[in-house]
């Protein structure tokens, strides 16, 4: 469980949109990579596609989004390391999950 920090002043809250551009979308391998990356951070991170919102640290949740190529995802990050986490997530998408 991510620790809830008491020092609310150091927490940041971000909402970011990104497009899935790798060939097969977030199938097992990219989903695993994304979850592994996100799980390193303390922040609470969720990802939404359409009306479906899941915990971005849950592989089942992320795979269940069935985010195919060109789908738009919204990440919501809340916590002390949100900014760093977002930089990492954005980088993964930019590298097309090293496919």
């Amino acid at each position, binding site marked *: 469980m991510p620790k809830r920090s008491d020092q609310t002043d150091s927490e940041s809250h971000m909402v970011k949109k990104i497009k899935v551009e790798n060939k097969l979308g977030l199938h*097992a391998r990219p989903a695993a990579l994304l979850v592994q990356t996100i799980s390193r951070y303390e922040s609470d991170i969720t990802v939404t596609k359409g009306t479906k919102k899941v915990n971005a640290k849950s592989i089942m949740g992320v795979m269940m989004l069935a985010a195919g190529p060109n789908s738009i995802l919204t990440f919501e990050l809340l916590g002390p390391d949100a900014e760093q986490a977002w930089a990492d997530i954005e980088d993964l998408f930019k590298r097309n999950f090293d496919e």
Partner: protein
Amino acid sequence: MEKHYGIAVSPGIVFARALVMESKDLVVKKVPIDETDIPREIARFEDALTKTRAELLNIRKKIASEIGREHSEIFNAHLLILEDRTLIEEVISRLREEKLNVEYIFSDIIEQYSRAFSQIDDSYLKERTSDVKDIGRRIIGNLMGRKKETLAEIKDQVVVVSHDLSPSETALMNKKYVIGFATDVGGPTSHAAIMARSMEIPAVVGLETISSEVLDGDIVVIDGNNGIVIVNPDEETLSEYKTEEEKFEAFVQRLDQVKELAATTLDGHTIELSANIEFPSDIDSVLLHGAHGIGLYRTEYMYLNKTVFPTEEEQFMAYKTVAERMGNMPVVIRTLDLGGDKFTSSLDMPKEINSFMGWRAIRFCLTRTDVFKTQLRAIMRASVFGNLKVMFPMISNLSELLKAKEILAEVKQDLKNEGIEFNDTIPIGAMIEVPSAAIASDIFAKEADFFSIGSNDLIQYSLAVDRVNEKIAYLYQPTHPAIIRLIKYVIEQGHKCNIMVGMCGEMAANPSHAVLLVGMGIDELSISAAFLPKVKKVIRSIKLSDAQKLVEECLKLTTSEEVSGYLDSKLLPILESIEQ
């Protein structure tokens, strides 16, 4: 003692303890628990997760070192499922609310997830249902205190009994300890059959219900010569089979005496006898059994069970190894034949209702020219290291053959521009396995350097008999008058254009069918290594002129049964003399 009859697909006799692969889900009971039991249930769940994790890490390590890192990647997703907080928290909160045993709650949750996955409108993710179920089964197995043996963890000799064997299951198998297969479904050309022949272990398929009738640890005899499986044989039967086993081994050893000899008939006509392979490592067995070349290198096995396609370099190394080890002997590399009953996880290939007639083999390659070109580059680069030929599968009309040749020409031009060496005159062959190609073989012969008749598919398509459906296995008839006429026609058309015509299907491995093919004028027979000595010995025992007469007589007959009966009556003395 029980006797089961199926289809013999790989010769030999063995007996050993049975390892029954779970195909059905474990039965989970619904048991109410007390409030005070909740911590115990949570502890059991965590314990099962830890055990499962250790198992997975072990298997992943094993697969990475034995088969290759790419194959082990799928387990990363499995491991993450184990660590999924959302899943774990759902189990714990439902446990507190519903006060039911954790096995029941967990399997219910897994069931919900699998249902949700199977409704996803994405064929790739849809297939992940099996991953979720697989991991669910492991955890439930551990929760129920059941030590589940997996194919990778076997430590002594077993025969594997299962509903079916998938390519990923056979890839996992510790081949040292698996000495036989018995499956409910399948036919002579199903994956389990091909793997058994490649591993040279006896196998019987199409046994319908064997996996639910045999228990782990039962003693099972697999008679791959006659298609019989005996469960818990009595002393007498067992000793009979021990003698049979010894006889068979002695027979195989005697056959190996012909290893160095050519497949020449008594009247001096020589047939090129080659082997079919799936992996470069099959070459030891090919050379041991005295093949004179490789008539079919099934390259798709390199693509199965992978999350990414093999690179040009990986393929080049494999083809180069095969080319070098075979030296001057010809090696026919068949380009990627995915689809049908062979799929890969690295591809978003939609499941098709009629996959044997769908987007497969050359049809797939001509759309995915990127994948096709990578393979052709690897083949061409390896072509300078031995006597390689290239062959295109599933050609059904001329434009496909021309297009494939055009792409090969482009690849050659690219290599030329890059200053990379290759054999510019590499022979290009067409596989004749679709009836349209057989009927129009006079047209195709002008555009190919050689033909290889793929009898498995040619029979399946010509007779409209699904070769993996055991219910209609009796209709799969290599000696059907239509098939004999069609094959004879293809050979004649090839010879009119002075090209070689071979056969690389299972039909060629049957000694009496092989004689028929020789009589029709076939130039080459390519079969599984295990069958080579027997077919060679048959060819060395007959005259070409007699085989030709046999063909003439067979062409007068009207049913498959008549043809088979006639062949048996004429060839039985020869076949019996070989066995002695």
